[in-house]
């Protein structure tokens, strides 16, 4: 199994600022995924991040608001820009199992509160 860490674990930010969330994996992985989980809701996929290429965003999510970096096979960042209270959520990254694309390992999440 992959071990995933996220930083920060939680943060409180002011409206209009940005937060960058880091995701570190203990092994090299091809694809990394970023999810958002709004309070009391299920998970929604934001984007898929492949090393060496632009991230692929899901409907309703745009690069200007959620820029993603994937500089190597063990690390990715998600930035949530121009924060508003509606961005208050838990943000999670995940990676695929090395031989089962439908089995993923998730990080512990980053709890963002926007005031």
């Amino acid at each position, binding site marked *: 199994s992959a071990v*995933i860490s996220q930083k920060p674990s939680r943060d409180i930010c002011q409206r209009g600022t940005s937060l960058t969330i880091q995701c570190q994996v203990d092994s090299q992985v091809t*694809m990394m*995924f970023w999810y958002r989980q709004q309070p009391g809701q*299920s*998970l*929604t*996929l934001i984007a*898929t991040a492949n090393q060496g290429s632009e991230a*692929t965003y*899901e409907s309703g999510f745009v690069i200007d608001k959620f820029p993603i970096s994937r500089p190597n096979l063990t690390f990715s960042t998600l930035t949530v820009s121009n924060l508003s209270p509606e961005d208050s959520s838990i943000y*999670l990254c*995940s990676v*695929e*199992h090395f031989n*089962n*694309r*439908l*089995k*993923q*390992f*998730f*990080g*512990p*999440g980053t*709890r963002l509160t926007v005031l």
Partner: protein
Amino acid sequence: LAKTTQPISMDSYEGQEVNITCSHNNIATNDYITWYQQFPSQGPRFIIQGYKTKVTNEVASLFIPADRKSSTLSLPRVSLSDTAVYYCLVQSPDNQGGKLIFGQGTELSVKP
């Protein structure tokens, strides 16, 4: 993508067997059924996956009837620590590039 329908919540008592059924009427031939568990303040955790009939591991069993239009996650002798949200997913490894699409999930509450 096949839509899944699960009960929003279920209650149980310690030591009981819990069965959570998921409906997926539009499941495609290549689709697999996967269940994840999520505790509060944690990311989801893979529990079990199957294609047909029955799959069992150290945590749970997954029952899939022949028509595959539903599946049942069975948790034997639950304890308080099994209180969590359980998600049923139907995905094809061929078409979605590994993306997971989560439904609403079932919030299981285990009481002493």
